[in-house]
């Protein structure tokens, strides 16, 4: 589904990615962990071209998306993204946040989009917030709305960029719970996170990144209980106390 071929990304003198290659199949839940500044987020943002790779190729559903002729907007409709800072639109109500993109891009009529948004809100138990503004919601609620906003586009894959890092501890659970449900429904997911519990429980594959490279790529049991790479052993010793 997603094929990454030796992607390199430089920001001036900083080498964020030094040749990352990866194949992600439909239905896989890939969790990427690693120390901060190792290039995890940059890698994720290269997948939907929020960052343009300096070199290398990214293929998505048989299309080379790093080709300048590729229609980036079309591509992004099929890739949902969830950000650390939620990035809900503060001047729009919750319902408008969810329906804005599908209606503007003429994927649905306003009535269809409203109906779908109300279904999605009911599913996450926030129906009564449809006409509220983002500032009136808690962080956990905002992040769940952000996930639903991406889902309203019916994407083929969901990208999560540290979705729980900006949340108060007691709100992390509700967001992870929703992500777990998505995973159980078979959504293809790529998640950058510091939540080791989530990685162990939900991931079908765990990646360890450091210095802009993938140093370990293994199923979670192997990744957490029999790590091969020394850097990963060191990292796990620090985070799993």
């Amino acid at each position, binding site marked *: 589904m997603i094929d990454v071929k030796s992607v390199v990304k430089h920001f001036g003198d900083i080498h964020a990615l030094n040749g990352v290659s990866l194949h992600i199949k439909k239905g896989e839940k890939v969790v990427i962990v690693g120390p901060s500044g190792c290039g995890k987020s940059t890698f994720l943002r290269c997948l939907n071209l929020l960052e343009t790779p300096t070199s290398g190729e990214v293929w998505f559903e048989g299309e080379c998306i790093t080709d300048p002729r590729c229609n980036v*907007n079309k591509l992004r409709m099929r890739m949902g993204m969830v950000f650390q800072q939620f990035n809900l639109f503060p001047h729009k109500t919750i319902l408008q946040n969810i329906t804005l993109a599908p209606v503007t891009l003429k994927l649905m009529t306003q009535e269809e989009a409203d109906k779908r948004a109300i279904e999605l809100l009911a599913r996450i138990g926030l129906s009564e917030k449809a006409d509220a503004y983002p500032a009136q919601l808690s962080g956990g609620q905002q992040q769940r709305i952000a996930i639903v906003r991406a889902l309203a586009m019916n994407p083929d894959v969901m990208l999560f960029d540290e979705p729980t890092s900006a949340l108060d501890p007691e709100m992390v659970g509700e967001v992870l719970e929703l992500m777990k449900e998505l995973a159980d429904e078979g959504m293809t997911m790529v998640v950058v996170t510091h939540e080791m519990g989530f990685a162990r429980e939900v991931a079908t594959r765990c990646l360890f990144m450091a210095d802009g490279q993938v140093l370990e790529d293994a199923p979670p049991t192997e990744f957490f209980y029999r790590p091969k790479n020394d850097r990963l052993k060191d990292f796990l010793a620090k985070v799993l106390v």
Partner: protein
Amino acid sequence: MFDDLPGQLYAALIKEDRWKLYIEGLGNTMIIAIGAVVIGLVLGTVIALIKVNANLNKKNVFLKFLDVICDIYLTVIRGTPMMVQILIGFNIIFAALSFDYSVLVAIICFGINSGAYVAEIVRSGIQAVNRGQLEAGRSLGLSNSQTMSLIILPQAIKNILPALGNELIVLFKETAIVGYIAVQDLTKMATLIQSRTYQPFVPLILSALIYLSIVMLMSWGLRGLERRLNKSDRR
């Protein structure tokens, strides 16, 4: 100064139907101010969008070229007095036009002047919107212009409303200098009546009161708009 105030009022207002002159003058003032505000807002927003996008896509040569033109415009307009600009506009650039067109020349000159200030205000408003908003819009598949018009600009306008209101008020009052290019605006009419009656008090104070009440009306309208846009901030 207050000798025979009823007589002064009569001379400045009633005699020879002089009250009509204030209304005619105010009409010209309003036409110039409204025309210039429209030109200024459109021009300023376009320039701000060019500058912001040139900054986002540094490799685009065409945008870079437009950006340089905008910089020259901003430097010249903000670096010279409005008074000089309007004299140049009337006596040099549009010198071929007859006096009948002086209101039009005034609208164009004030619009071009205001555009420079509005551009900087709008640019600051756009740049104050969190970058994550642009990324969120783009990640949903919206194009750059859809994201700008639906997500970034509405938030930017909310941020800049007080500064923009200020610019509109300044522009409205500054139209008082158009008398220099033979436009009969409110100020010009007041001095005209003064030159007939030899009594400055009534025409000058009256024109000041008219300006003041219109500015107060504008402030009131802007406050209402601000309140409406701020409804999404309530917690």
